[in-house]
């Protein structure tokens, strides 16, 4: 049972690696931003699986903080893309 969970953890980390490929390779700037957004969501899944694996609950706190920071960061990047100042 625990072995299966570790396989799932490695698969999830490999999927984050695929997002890194799009970040490095992406032809335009918005491609990279989309990949960063998706990467932030995938890391939350990694945190959740690690919290089952170790049985500690504080790792989920890291996931929640990562959700909020990724949200704010993506909104800031979207403002930058549409050419507006941050207070408009």
């Amino acid at each position: 049972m625990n072995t299966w969970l570790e396989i799932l953890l490695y698969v999830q980390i490999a999927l984050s690696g695929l997002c890194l490929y799009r970040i490095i390779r992406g032809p335009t700037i918005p491609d990279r931003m989309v990949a960063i957004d998706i990467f932030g969501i995938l890391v939350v899944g990694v945190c959740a699986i690690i919290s089952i694996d170790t049985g500690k609950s504080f790792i989920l706190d890291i996931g929640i903080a990562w959700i909020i920071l990724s949200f704010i960061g993506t909104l800031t990047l979207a403002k930058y893309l549409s050419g507006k100042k941050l207070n408009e």
Partner: protein
Amino acid sequence: MIALIVISIGILFNLFGCIGLLRLPDVYNRLQAATKCVTLGCCSILAGVLIHFGFTEAGIKALIAVPLLFFSSTVAAHALIRGTYHFGVKMSDKSVKDDYKDVEK
């Protein structure tokens, strides 16, 4: 056991989303494939955490994270794709329709 099945389904959704992120032709298709699949997949993983721990400290944290992830990722994707359109990224050659161009005028 049920928790492992739910987590496996979530990772399958993540896999489909990442394949869409890598394979589709332009940024609009990539975002619409990746955001939906990955959001549902990670919500499923957090639901698996809730099933595994029950209503303990960790389970309640997972239960809080689900609506937070759901709303924040969809709103962020909407804002990001609107900024992308204003930035001037062209659609791919196979796209047939652009309704947002008429709305912007």
